[in-house]
């Protein structure tokens, strides 16, 4: 969909700082097993929050791409 951003997390880089769960709480979460869960397609305010989270990720593990489908 136009205007949407695709989100992925490079789990080889991620060291579970959980910074993304604070900066984009509607997108990133940790489940009861302690595993990272996240929405893979976002838009609007959530996309802005994801950009902040990607900027502030200490291990630069969050990848963003415009959804061009």
């Amino acid at each position, binding site marked *: 969909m136009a205007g949407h951003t695709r989100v992925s997390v490079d789990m080889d880089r991620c*060291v*579970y*700082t*959980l*910074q993304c769960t*604070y900066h984009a709480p509607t997108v990133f979460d940790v489940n009861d097993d302690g595993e990272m869960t996240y929405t893979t397609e976002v838009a609007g305010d959530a996309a802005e929050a994801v950009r902040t989270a990607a900027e502030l*990720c*200490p*291990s*630069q593990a969050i990848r963003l791409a415009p959804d061009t489908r």
Partner: protein
Amino acid sequence: MTQSLPEHIPGILTPAFESDPYRSYALMREEAPLYYDDQLQAYVISRYSDVARAFKDPAFTNRNYEWQLEPVHGRTIVQMDGREHATKRAIVAPCFRPKAILGKLTAIIEGNAVRLVDEFVGRGSCEFSAEFSRLYPINVTADMMGLPVEDLETFRGWYSAIIDFLGNLTQDEAVTQAGLRARDEMAKYMLPVIAERRRNPGDDLLSTLCAAEVDGVQMSDEEIKSFASLLLTAGGETTDKVLTSLLAKLVEHPDQLADVRRGRSLIPAALAETLRVAPPLHMVMRQTAVDVEIADGAIPAGSTVVCLIASANRDPAVFSNPDHFDIHRTDVDASREFSGASKQLAFVHGRHFCVGSLLAKQEVEVGLNVLLDRTSDIRLQAGFVPVEEGVFTRAPRKLLLDLTPAP
């Protein structure tokens, strides 16, 4: 069985090490990638792969800072782990994001750089370390916190006392007492300021930290005071040292200085290369939470581990021609070197990646640009050779430069 250091390799607390640590690092990586140092009562690792792992593997904790830093700063994010670290880091991190650093802070940073350079440039010479590097990061930090300029002298006194306290490897009692006195005086000064900013917020860093809230959690006045102390000293000394090292490397390589003068977009690459080859912090410590197997040996739980950043940054397994200063090197991508995706380890890796890396980059970039704009030539004073000093933190103590002021 973990070995001790072979006798022909100068160990960390020897004079031979201080005069040339890089020779020791090469021998350690080759012959003793893990050894136990009796004087430091710590295990020492030197290869890139092992140091990088220690920064990412949760088996290596930051509990060492409970005795290294907490006595002088109070409890800060550098020693926290898990949920506490995640929450507190999330509160301070937005103050150091690109939007904040490149926005209103630019004027503060540039103003401070201009004031200092204008003091000496007309004279045609300077001692760059004392007249610029040592003053600039403290001035910027105090300015960011909205502290009055007339208190800067007092701040510098605390800064020196705390830095000496942190580098007090021989446990000199007078240095310890001066450090603790500075801590108490700084707390006495800062706490009422923080309380006042909570009542009457401005647009300074302290006010922002007072108001910041994550998951319903705020920082207490005591925590803000501790963070300010960490920012002033730990953040200040590293920027101070890397600025002097960067200038020293550039004047020692006049062809590369000329490239930077012509193409200012090379400044980040020059800084990244300085951080690699001459990092301000040569080593950091970690503490093992469990028994760890590393570098063909073993470290028991609860041990202190010295991670040799400056050695990892010259590991030939990762960097080609590693002892050579080359701002044009193709095995490093300067645009990534100030983020957690960096290759060199001066900002460490993983969950404790330096929260102030962009502030450091911006201070250096602006500072060097101001200096280059106001000069047409910078060179070492005839007969002067910069000599690096220090073991934990390291840079030339003095840097005597001749300058030709710009027309």
